[in-house]
């Protein structure tokens, strides 16, 4: 009886799972096998793919454009993550002071996050335009924001930060509101000023939120593509905004080296898996208390 029922249940379980399992196998797992196969072949989309062994790997690791794009990506992440985290935390503290209108500001700050990064990139490309652009009109300058190698990456990073601060703010607001009032009370009674309370009480209690924001931020910044593609096509001045995602796209769909682009994609994959695993280990060790 029981085993019959169990078998029946199991059958239903597999049936319900079938479509998503197909999707995951066909569109997430199989592609990884294909990308590994492609990385061992030379293919220009027109002539048949040719097996070349590890040659693509050798070439990619000697490719100055690829090495530069790794540096650019790391710089981009280093620019975006600390600033957007700090700004998000700052606005979250302002918004949790209980002042009237906070809800309104919170809603407004999230707007850029809802919008297509590609279209935001296009809007900002106009704002940055040397002739007829809004930024130079506001500042009264004549700066080529997106074509100056010293300014292009900061400009691109600024757009990324601008569009994500509201999102980060939401998480910190949630974290701050979840801090039990008694703890803050106790701190106040102990004579702790607002500044001290922030550094010594709130910030340590925000650690889970902080980890979440940092890790998801790092992972998504490593893959940033849309707004960068819109702002600085073809890698920007001297390749200074050629992050790894735009490099992969260019290598595959503009220079038609599918094999080498696959190697780059694999490198990114390994990097991101490493980030995720490190964060998992770290997280398990450090977060021992439960806020809920």
């Amino acid at each position: 009886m029981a085993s019959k029922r169990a078998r029946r249940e199991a059958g239903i379980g597999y049936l319900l799972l079938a479509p998503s399992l197909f999707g995951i196998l066909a569109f997430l797992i199989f592609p990884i096998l294909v990308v590994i196969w492609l990385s061992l072949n030379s293919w220009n989309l027109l002539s048949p793919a040719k097996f070349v062994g590890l040659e693509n790997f050798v070439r990619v690791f000697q490719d100055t454009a690829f090495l530069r794009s790794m540096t650019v990506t790391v710089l981009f992440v280093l620019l975006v993550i600390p600033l957007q985290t700090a700004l998000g935390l700052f606005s979250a503290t302002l918004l949790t002071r209980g002042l009237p209108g906070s809800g309104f500001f919170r809603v407004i700050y999230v707007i850029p996050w809802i919008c297509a990064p590609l279209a935001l990139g296009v809007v900002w490309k106009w704002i940055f335009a040397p002739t007829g652009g809004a930024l130079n009109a506001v500042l009264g300058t004549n700066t080529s924001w997106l074509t100056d190698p010293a300014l292009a990456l900061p400009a691109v990073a600024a757009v990324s930060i601008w569009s994500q601060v509201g999102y980060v703010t939401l998480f910190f607001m949630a974290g701050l509101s979840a801090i039990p009032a008694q703890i803050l009370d106790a701190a106040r009674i102990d004579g702790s000023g607002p500044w001290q309370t922030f550094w010594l009480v709130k910030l340590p209690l925000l650690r889970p939120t902080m980890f979440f924001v940092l890790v998801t931020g790092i992972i998504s910044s490593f893959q940033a593509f849309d707004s960068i593609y819109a702002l600085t096509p073809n890698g920007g001045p001297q390749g200074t905004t050629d992050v790894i995602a735009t490099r992969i796209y260019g290598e595959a769909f503009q220079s038609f080296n599918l094999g080498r682009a696959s190697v780059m994609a694999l490198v990114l994959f390994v990097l991101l898996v490493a980030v995720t695993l490190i964060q998992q280990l770290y997280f398990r060790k450090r977060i021992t208390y439960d806020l809920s």
Partner: protein
Amino acid sequence: MKSFWRKGATATAALGAAVLALTATGCSPAADKGSTAGSSGPNTTVTVRLWDEQVQKAYEASFKEFEAKNPNITVKTTLEPFSTYFDKLRTDVSGGNADDIFWVSSSYFAPYADNGSLLEIGSEFDSEKSGWVPAAVDQYTRNGKLWGVPQLTDGGIAVYYNKAMLAKAGVDPSDLSWNPTDPSKDTFLKAAQKLTLDANGKTADDPSFDKDHIVQYGYNASQDLQAIYYNFIGSNGGAFQDGEKFVFASDKSAQAFQYVVDLINKYHVSPGAANTNDNGDFLRDQFIQGHVAMFQSGTYNLKNVSDGAKFDWAIAPIPAGPEGRVSVVNNIVAAANAKTTHKDATLKVLQWLGSAEGSKFIGAEGAAVPAVTAAQSSYADFWKAKGVDSSQFAKAAEGKTISAPVGSNYGAAANAWKPIFNEIFLGRTPVKEGLQKAQDAANAAMTQ
């Protein structure tokens, strides 16, 4: 038990069906421009892809006549912007959903010809071939076979100029010359300087000229292969390529590049490259809006200038260099997709495009010069009727010429030199050094 199974299966199936139903209704309002795959029935649709909006209009008129003569063939055109044209074409040809007929330029056609992606323009066209511009036939013959039906011939390059501006500055554009080594022989730079004005009305050769507030530029020096730097290289006796090998860092070519870059960054007679590196139409628009006095370009902009400019303008020859006036010539062909599912209809459309009758439409509205010789008068007639003397382009093509770049990996090579050229034109990388770097990168990309 059966019922459980059935219900589980029903759930999955019902959902699948719902998704399928929705997908089946997935349709695009723009779909009528796509190709009807594998239609060999009474009505065949042949699709033609190109990048020029003006010629698209001419084609539509032409195909209307074709369809009247061939009631069982419908021809549709697809426009793909030039900036992404060759990226998209490659993935489309590879994915098997390229149009039946598509334009290619001389620089990009080689890999398609080499990999069997194109139909040979063979004996079906023997009666037409003699009517095509010979330079175009040469340009698209590779390994002894012709790979496209010549459509446009760009003629040479010439200079559009704003009559009022030149008259005011006292510049006669009919015989200017430039010289990279001997300033005394350089009348072109002096003219361009006189034509460049700051907000106070001072010209660019005035010591008190304010380069930060320029309201009128003399000339359109920029990173424009066809209209600008290729011609300077040619007119200085330099070369861009030797066979498929890039040699543009050689002395004569580097001199020419230096001269062009100096026009922008040293003499300020052209806008900074930040505006133009990624925007090929910026200077055309500036000329049309009356902010640039001399605009060097080809027939491909004649229609745009004529439609857009609200002032008196005319056309002069390009400035002569130490080797005289050497202009780039280029031709565009329509090639046939080797994977077309209706070869006969496709060839029929191509034959129509290669005939004087079919290609006269290209010239009839002044869009471009047809590469079918007998149809070329339509172009001249159109502009003559408009009171425009377009003869400078033809004269340039008849004079000394330098042929456009070619190569089996041209796209990758261009991607390799482009970022370095950007820096050169922005004045941030010294010309000679940058060219050497760009040349190495381009040759490496070409031979990979």
